[in-house]
């Protein structure tokens, strides 16, 4: 199989300063009751650029056919586009081979795939699965589901009051029984960037496999799975400008090769008899049934779009915006930022004295400002930090300082209303 060429990212549109890509995102031109859309919930799902919308539309309009089946031209072309999308994602993630990239429905399915396939085949009673208190439910519950039948034990490394992983606490929980370390690259609730490389080195030192939940890092940071030391890496299309219902699982070839299929069906077989079935090689072994072909093509287009702008430029833009917004919200009386890690991606989580996050969310919505309010599918983290919920504004490459200004103005309004 051909190795992936590790192309250098093209020079960014703007090496320094703020990006201006808003015209690429049609939804940003919409208004509600005359008020422009201020979309600050990209950590939940991102908006989609024309390049992605067009890629899906073009596929359905001119190339739609099932893949890996037809002998006719149209099917061959659909197959080529589907394979090309996989190559694009492999390049995006820094995978060595395209077959190391398995298409799934999203990060959640990717992690469940590892837990059910690798986990059931490799976990024994007393084995330990080490998570962190920062994890999203989708990096907790799949491990609990596999711990139960295998007799493995789930443990969680502590976080500090600032919302950073407590590395000493992590080291203490890492033992010869640790078989899996599952860690989010970037916390969806707080924006904390975890020291994945350091954690991976420690984990590999005890022979554990490292599963990285990259749902929040893949859209915002230059990701290189090999540089990170990730044995598995999961991310979602819809959080990185692509269509919903798509994601990938990256896994190292030797691990994926040794894993049993997770779901059975068409497209994942070699030979089927009623006595015995042999399975297709990677990646088809893990892609039973007709996949979301248009979704994969849209996902590939999203990856290309991001690489075209340049991830360093996106990271710099979002970091500048986060700093700007963090400074601006400090003027809102009674507001406290939750999660003050040194290394943060574009998430601003906060609480306000006397105003519940849901009420903040409703009041901001009146100004067409969209934020997330709640526990962010991270209930153990909320308990650890002693807050029932937070309000969360999250930034993407298409946000600008005017968005942050509108947010702050609306927060002042909430403060006035609630006294």
């Amino acid at each position, binding site marked *: 199989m051909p190795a992936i060429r590790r192309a250098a990212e093209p020079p960014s549109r703007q090496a320094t300063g703020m990006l201006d890509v808003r015209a690429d995102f049609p939804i940003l031109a919409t208004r509600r*009751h005359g008020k422009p859309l201020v979309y600050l919930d990209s950590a939940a799902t991102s908006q989609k650029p024309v390049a992605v919308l067009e890629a899906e539309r073009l596929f359905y309009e001119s190339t739609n056919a099932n893949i890996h089946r037809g002998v006719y031209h149209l099917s061959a072309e659909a197959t080529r586009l589907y394979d090309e999308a996989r190559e694009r994602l492999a390049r995006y993630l820094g995978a060595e081979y395209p077959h190391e990239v398995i298409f799934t429905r999203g990060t959640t399915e990717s992690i469940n795939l590892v837990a059910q396939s690798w986990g059931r085949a490799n976990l024994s009673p007393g084995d330990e699965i080490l998570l962190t208190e920062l994890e999203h439910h989708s990096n907790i519950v799949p491990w609990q589901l596999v711990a139960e039948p295998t007799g493995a034990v789930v443990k969680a490394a502590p976080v500090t009051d600032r919302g950073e992983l407590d590395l000493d606490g992590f080291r203490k929980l890492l033992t010869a029984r640790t078989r899996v370390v599952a860690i989010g690259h970037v916390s969806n609730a707080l924006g904390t960037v975890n020291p994945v490389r350091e954690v991976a080195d420690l984990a590999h030192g005890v022979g554990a496999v490292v599963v990285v939940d990259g749902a929040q890092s893949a859209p915002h940071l230059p990701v290189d799975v090999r540089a990170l030391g990730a044995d598995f890496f999961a991310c979602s299309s819809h959080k990185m400008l692509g269509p919903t219902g798509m994601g990938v699982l990256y896994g190292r070839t030797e691990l994926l090769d040794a894993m049993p299929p997770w779901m059975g069906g068409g497209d994942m077989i070699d030979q089927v008899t009623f006595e015995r079935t042999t399975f297709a090689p990677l990646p088809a072994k893990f892609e039973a049934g007709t996949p979301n072909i248009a979704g994969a093509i849209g996902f590939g287009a999203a990856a290309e779009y991001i690489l075209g702008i340049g991830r360093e430029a996106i990271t710099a833009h979002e970091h500048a915006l986060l700093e700007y917004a963090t400074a601006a919200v400090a003027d809102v009386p009674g507001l406290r930022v939750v999660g003050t890690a040194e290394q943060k991606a574009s998430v601003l989580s906060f609480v306000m004295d*006397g*105003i*519940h*996050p*849901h*009420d903040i969310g*409703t*009041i901001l919505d*009146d100004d067409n400002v969209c934020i997330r*309010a*709640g*526990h962010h599918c991270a*209930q153990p983290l*909320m308990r650890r930090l002693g807050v*029932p*919920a937070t309000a969360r504004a999250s930034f993407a490459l298409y946000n600008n300082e005017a968005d942050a200004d509108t947010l702050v103005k609306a927060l002042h*309004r909430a403060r006035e*209303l*609630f*006294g």
Partner: protein
Amino acid sequence: MATMNELYQNMILDHNRTPRNFRQIPDATGHAEGRNPLCGDQLDVWIKQDSAGRIEDVSFEGSGCAISKASASLMTQAVKGKTRGEALALFERFHALVTGRAKDQEKLGKLDVFSGVAEFPVRVKCASLSWHTMKAALEQEQTVSTE
């Protein structure tokens, strides 16, 4: 379109800040826990019924948004002294109010401050959580969820 001032009326803000009957009842005859798993709201309702089945005392504790907290506070005031049947009938009318199905002539007194909720469909469950929990406490169900 309802304005923010219509949704967050002064009485709601007042009951949010200073919830009434915000305590436990040690000798309660009924108790239930209400949860909204999607947003993380949770509250407990305690009820003490007398020998005739009348609600002698009712209280709550928990955390949630202004709508859910004020609704719980006003719910305790509204059902105190009522029979089980009267309390459940009031719940029906309250539910009609917050889901926009109330008839104009029906006035619910203080509870009318929640009429603005009808224009915010995602907040209906905030307003009704304490009522569902009160009903569960009357029926001695352990937990109730609005999802």
